[in-house]
């Protein structure tokens, strides 16, 4: 969610299989750079694979462009990467939170597993309880 020139991002830390909880320290939010975070929920293996591929692309971007990627540009990258697998998708639901531009305007974006972006001003949600989160 966004505040005045700031954003926050939160996730649970459960890794479970059906009713069994295997771990309570799973990482679901990753820092891309100081002003950009991505949260990934969904199928755990795809979350891990997708973040590996994403880190690879961002490292290359950093090396080539010698600057941090803009949140809106990053969201476009994520969306494209997901849609490339249109007929065999990664089962992940990304939530992107960052600050864009010299004025640190909050940038919030959620996506479905095929990369359909939905940007919002106040808050974005994703994951199993996303409908419930909208209510909260």
């Amino acid at each position, binding site marked *: 969610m966004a505040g005045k020139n700031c954003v926050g991002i939160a996730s649970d830390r459960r890794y479970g*299989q059906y009713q069994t909880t295997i*771990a309570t320290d799973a990482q679901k939010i990753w820092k891309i750079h100081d002003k950009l975070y991505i949260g990934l929920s969904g199928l755990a293996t795809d979350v*891990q694979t997708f973040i590996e591929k994403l880190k690879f692309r961002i490292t290359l971007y950093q090396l080539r462009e010698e600057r941090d990627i803009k949140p809106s540009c990053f969201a476009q990258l994520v969306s494209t990467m997901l849609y490339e697998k249109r007929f065999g998708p990664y089962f992940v639901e990304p939530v992107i939170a960052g600050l864009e531009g010299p004025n640190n305007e909050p940038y919030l974006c959620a996506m479905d597993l095929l990369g359909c972006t939905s940007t919002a001003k106040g808050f974005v949600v994703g994951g199993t309880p996303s409908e419930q989160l909208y209510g909260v």
Partner: protein
Amino acid sequence: KDYVLLIADRKVAYSVVALKSDHDKIMHLDASKLFAIAGEGGDAVQFSEYVQKNLHLYNLKTGLPLSTKAAAHFTRNELATALRKGPFQVNALLGGVDHSGPSLYHLDYLGTLHKVNFGAQGYGGYFCYSILDRLWKPDMSLDEGVALMNTCIKEINSRFLVGGADFTIKVVTAEGIRVLDPVLASSA
């Protein structure tokens, strides 16, 4: 504290028949890593041998042993790549000791990797997680660890429908791999 302890049952079943009761399901990936595998017969052996040979190749190519974390991530990548081509029906626990100490990784057949303090694959978890949750604490000595494992084995053998099996117990320490005898239940 300075070891990883893995146990696995020794039964190979073919529908309702027990084909073999002394099968070793814990493979030695190299001198400091153990790979306990649960899964479909052929896949389990083929995949674990594939990982073992690839680790050996890395060692031959570079002259360096892989860290446990690197080996776990390599294995995860193989499983994740195979997932959408021809998945391996292999759930595993990978444990090893390297320069950063002991570590245990929980791997499922989809390629989900998680570093854990203790873990279980298969039905064992239903019986053992609560015991491990209650009794595991950091920096346990090997004797305490073996006692905890024996508690888990007792629980499985008394409450699990397909219990009453022998178990392989192996431990990795900085010195290497040792096979412990489940009956003796000591660290000798």
